[in-house]
């Protein structure tokens, strides 16, 4: 019975926390994805910007090279002069309509550069690569090797202006080389190989450099690099230094003709997440919810436990009451049967029947008190008790009550000392007084039998009646003085001491309060004494 609610409580805490955590993680990862996507988009945008500027640069170069190649006469010296003086040019070449290399002519005297050119591009010329790409372009419209004229607004006129020319990409030496070529109206192909080192240097010159980190520490540290064919780094910039095995955060293939080049951006990994605050918020939220839920569970457990204890007390109370009821009832029945049997052999003036009647009477009185107590307790809980004042003399009531206890007191050999000083008639509820006194005496009878002594003392003033019951019993520890008035509390839970319902003093206190008075418990040298003060005036009654 105990484990089940605990399990429920654990579930009560764990289940919402799990849900909350799961939701939080989902939300955080979603947020992370979103931030990542945003950053990637931003970075890709930057790379596109770079791509565009490089494309513009090449476009400018293409325009220049178109001018260079727009020639219809092919004088050796003039061609050489162009090569000699233009820093961007590696070599010019002319192929005649019969696909024969006219310049630099393999049969004529060659300069070193020209020889170099012929060696490097022999396949290009012999296999008619340019011519093939030309046909591909005219039939398919586009071919991989040729830069298709870009249709972006501003460049359009330029494209029209140089619609006869195109880039061709050819691999030799350290990597790709750019060839700008066009077919002239006379059928000749005029092309120019631009100096690879030079156009790379020019592109690098236009790209950003790495400024001192201290100068703009606020911006996100990143590393951008241009990579040829996936491996060879051409240029890099930016203060961030990624590990060599780090994958780029974003990648972008450059537009044709530099499609062998890729732009890559690296940013520190922690920048890709929503930041530490996201995780921190999640954990903080979970902790707070956890604490709240545990607090709630604790409160529920507390309440639940209290009710459980209350319930178990009630059960034991009912058990006690039943037990208490049975003892006098058994006695009454037994003595009644004895009396009945005695009636057959009745001897006149025999004391026997009277004694038995006395027991029956005292037992029934005990029963009455018990029932009154239970009723009083029940009423007290329902708060339906009423004070019903009458003109009575306190001492008389004391004597009457004591009389009713006399047989059992005698039997238990308890000496009673009386000091009664309240002989004047006062307005009090005699039932309440009787019940208070009965409970106190009954306690002595139950718990202080060993003292074999009891003292009842009364006194009265204009406002109140004072009643003291003292004994020579085991006493009550002063730390427990407050607790004795709690319902079901008993000084010892040992079974030998189990007689009694545990509600006597609770009722005493309640009745005293009801009657505008109070109860005090005091330890004396040899035992304990209870002092009850009951108000005489009717104010207390008015309160109710």
């Amino acid at each position, binding site marked *: 019975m105990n484990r089940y609610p605990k399990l429920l409580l654990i579930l009560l805490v764990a289940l919402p926390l799990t849900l909350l955590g799961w939701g939080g993680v989902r939300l955080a990862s979603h947020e992370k994805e979103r931030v990542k996507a945003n950053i990637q988009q931003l970075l890709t945008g930057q790379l596109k910007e770079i791509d565009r500027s490089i494309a513009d640069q090449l476009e400018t170069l293409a325009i220049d090279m178109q001018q260079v190649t727009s020639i219809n006469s092919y004088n050796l010296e003039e061609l050489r002069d162009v090569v000699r003086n233009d820093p961007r040019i590696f070599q010019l070449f002319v192929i005649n309509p019969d696909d024969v290399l006219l310049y630099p002519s393999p049969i004529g005297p060659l300069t070193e550069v020209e020889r170099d050119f012929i060696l490097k591009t022999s396949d290009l010329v012999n296999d008619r690569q340019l011519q093939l790409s030309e046909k591909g372009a005219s039939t398919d419209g586009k071919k991989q090797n040729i830069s298709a004229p870009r249709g972006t607004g501003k460049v359009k006129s330029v494209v029209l202006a140089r619609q006869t020319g195109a880039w061709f990409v050819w691999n030799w030496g350290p990597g790709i080389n750019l060839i700008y070529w066009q077919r002239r109206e006379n059928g000749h192909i005029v092309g120019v190989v631009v100096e690879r080192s030079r156009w790379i240097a020019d592109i690098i010159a236009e790209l950003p*450099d790495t400024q001192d980190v201290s100068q703009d520490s606020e911006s996100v540290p990143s590393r951008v690099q241009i990579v040829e064919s996936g491996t060879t780094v051409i240029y890099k910039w930016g203060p961030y230094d990624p590990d060599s095995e780090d994958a780029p955060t974003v990648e972008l293939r450059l537009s044709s003709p530099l499609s062998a080049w890729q732009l890559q951006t690296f940013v520190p990994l922690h920048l890709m997440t929503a930041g530490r605050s996201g995780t921190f918020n999640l954990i903080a939220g979970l902790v707070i919810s956890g604490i709240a839920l545990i607090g709630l569970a604790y409160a529920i457990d507390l309440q639940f436990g209290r009710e459980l204890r209350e319930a178990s007390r009630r059960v034991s109370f009912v058990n006690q009451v039943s037990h208490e009821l049975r003892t006098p009832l058994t006695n009454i029945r037994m003595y009644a049967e004895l009396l009945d049997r005695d009636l057959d052999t009745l001897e006149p003036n025999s004391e026997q029947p009277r004694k038995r009647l006395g027991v029956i009477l005292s037992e029934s009185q005990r029963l009455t008190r018990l029932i009154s107590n239970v009723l009083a307790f029940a009423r007290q809980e329902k708060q339906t008790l009423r004070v019903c004042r009458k003109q009575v003399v306190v001492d008389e009531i004391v004597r009457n009550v004591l009389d009713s206890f006399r047989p059992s007191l005698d039997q238990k050999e308890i000496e009673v000392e009386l000091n009664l000083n309240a002989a004047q008639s006062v307005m009090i509820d005699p039932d309440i007084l009787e019940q208070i006194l009965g409970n106190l005496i009954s306690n002595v009878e139950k718990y202080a039998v060993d003292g074999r002594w009891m003292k009842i003392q009364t006194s009265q003033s204009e406002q109140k009646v004072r009643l003291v019951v003292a004994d020579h019993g085991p006493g009550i520890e002063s730390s427990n003085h407050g607790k004795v008035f709690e319902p079901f509390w008993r000084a010892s839970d040992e079974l030998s001491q189990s007689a009694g319902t545990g509600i006597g003093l609770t009722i005493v206190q309640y009745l005293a309060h009801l009657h505008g008075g109070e109860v005090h418990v005091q330890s004396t040298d040899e035992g304990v004494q209870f002092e009850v003060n009951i108000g005489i005036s009717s104010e207390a009654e008015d309160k109710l």
Partner: protein
Amino acid sequence: MMMNMKSLMTAGVAAVLLHVGTVQAEQVTLDVSPAYKVLKSGKKQTTWLRVGVTGFEMKTDKERAPVNIAIVLDKSGSMSGEKIAKARQAAMGAIDRLGPNDIVTVVTYDTTVNVLVPATKLTDKEYVKKAIAGVSSGGGTALFAGVSKGAAEIRKFLDKERVNRIILLSDGLANEGPSTPSELGSLGASLKKEGISVSTLGLGLNYNEDLMAKLAGRSGGNHQFIERATELADIFNREFDEVTSIVAQEVKVKITVPEGIRPVRVLGNEAEISGQSIQLAFNQLYSKQNRHVVLEVEVPETENGQKMQLAKVSANYRNMQSGETDKLSGATSVKFSSDDKQVEASLTQTVMEDVVAFVANEQNRLATDYLDAGDIMKCASTLEINSAFLKENADKYNSVKLRGILLGNGYQLDAVKNRDLNRARKDMRFFQNTITDNAPADADFSKLSKQKVQTPSQQPAQQQKKQIP
């Protein structure tokens, strides 16, 4: 065959000034000299002629052309410590020598490039020096990108009136971006066409001498091998001495040889031979500097007593003091004789010295190639043959210049024998570049390697008679 009116021209040295600009302005002189003024008749033979230009003397510092210079500093991890400190010091010292009309760029590079001081007129020296003082080292070596950025800055103020130069310092192998000698060389060649030259200063023993030599060589700049960081300031000073005393730029020389004579090769500078014409260019010429090439030609069989024009030379250059483009021209011819003594007596010794120096240089390059191929024995023997060749000619002509080169060659031979290959190789590249560079005639070559000779000279290799190729 070539007997026509041209043969009437005087034999021997002829340097003719065609263009007369501002009368006061001094001119670069062009000289064309054959090794032998008289050739042996009746046989097909090979001979040489030297074509040289000499800068005039710059009078005062006031006249000097403003410079447009980019200092490109390696700040890779290997530069840390003394090297970077000395480099900073040298660069700052160099800044002090420049004036407010000069333009300075400072670029640093490691894994990436930082244009520390974009091209700017040097009106605030302290600002530039402060920027240099803040340079610290760390990272890779993005040499190509460093030069690219430096060139881009130079280009902002590219002006024929200025001396445009990149001074590149590196102590390591280029490992970021294009890094092969040929790629850097191509970049250098392209920059040369614009009138930008790159001087490369290789520091320590770990840089790529091929790359640095090629970049400098093809762009018309100097290449220096600086073994110790403490020498940096000196080298910077020398470089700036040169830069601030340039009197002519874009010196373009065209040599035309008559039909029948075959140009074989040009020694001493990158040149373009096509048919009967040879074209070459020097980026710049500083005060009193002599730069020259030797042209090897094959002369057809000619009869005794005949005269033949060997070459016609025209040149033009930008005079950095007058701001004008000046033109020069010259020609040379030879006589033929059957008398060996006459032939022998007609020898111009200085020309022959240059021929020997260049030929020895080619041999030295060959030795480097053997070294690269891993054939150390062959490398050593090539150097030994070269030493013998140099010694023979130095004695024959009693030449200080050849003895200087001999000393360097000997040092390299020692280094190779001691298996100090890295140092040897760097010294070889440096030498090859320096000799090609045509240092002034009074240059003391022995000085270049004096400080580096560590072991006493080995026993002189057995003299081997070596024919001049």
